[in-house]
């Protein structure tokens, strides 16, 4: 996964970051969808969440289309989700 991640990383044009710490469902998912629509092909979106259910809802929504690149649990209970359009 990690190797793949960096290979993909090379062709990325823009990186967006969405900070969703302390935000309540469904806000993070709405923000992510919104940003995803705005972004152009090849852009990377990094979403930072701190609730397991937020993680699941975003994962469910984007992995349907294989957009999720990586999910990292950075510190206990905080996840970074990388989505590439």
């Amino acid at each position: 996964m990690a190797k793949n991640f960096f290979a993909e990383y090379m062709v990325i044009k823009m990186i967006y970051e969405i900070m969703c710490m302390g935000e309540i469902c469904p806000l993070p998912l709405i923000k992510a969808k919104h940003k995803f629509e705005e972004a152009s092909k090849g852009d990377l979106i990094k979403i930072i969440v701190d609730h397991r259910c937020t993680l699941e809802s975003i994962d469910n929504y984007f992995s349907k289309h294989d957009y999720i690149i990586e999910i990292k649990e950075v510190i206990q209970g905080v996840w970074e989700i990388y989505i590439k359009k």
Partner: protein
Amino acid sequence: MHINNLIAFYKTVYYKSISYAAKELYLSQPAISQQIKALEKDLDTILLKRSNRGVEPTAAGELVYQYAENILNIYENMIKDLECFKDDCFNRLSITSCPTIGQYALPCTLHEFKKNHKNLLVHTEHDFTQKVIYNVKEGSTDIGFIEGCYSDEYINCIPLGKYKMHFVASSNFPEKILSKNKLIHYNFFIIHKNCSLRKIIEETLLNYSIDIKKLKIEMESPSIESIKSSVAAGHGLSILPYISIKKELYTKTLSIINVENIDFTYNYSLIYNKRLKKTPKYDFIEFIKNNGKEFFC
């Protein structure tokens, strides 16, 4: 006894003034006076001392005031339940929660629960554990979330899991490891005495033979947010629950300090009154029982 008379009396004592009570209840002052007199007649006791400096409850009035608070809380809960009943949304759930769970863990859980319960109106409040237990016992709230565990003849308790607290400092703080003897050199911002977390902190420190009274306590606050900002500004140390500092740890405004592996672990649990039977309310308890651990991350 008319409930309106009780309300008039309660508001008058609350504001220590008949005119304020009249204003809030959209009544004239003589009307309020009359209602209170009627209440005094019903109860056959003088409740208010009237003087030219305003009103004051008598000793008996003080007693009635305390009961009035409970009676009116239950009454209000009944009225709201009844409104829901009329509006076809049968399910009204009132939850009182201790601040950490209420602010950081509960909103997400409620959202998840509401996905499958469309007609649910949730009413949440934050209060300290002691008050939560009291509210559940007297029936003014359906479900409570507390730190620690509590059960008695009226209350059932479902333990949900464990949280941890840590010593925290601003991320500029030079040390990552401290010995406990050095703690007395730093200022502390500690959760207020009314919060049950404070008791857990004191007990744990005592187990490691640290007397909290010997620490330099700069400020006590019931608000975790205000403690966080003081600590982040570098004014001193604190002991805070992990769940409340995740964001600050991630953005590196706060960092955890290891003090001789002192471990503040505490339980949190859900409590409800044993009289609670109505299904939608009970559904929530089942939901938390089955999924609580997942959502309370």
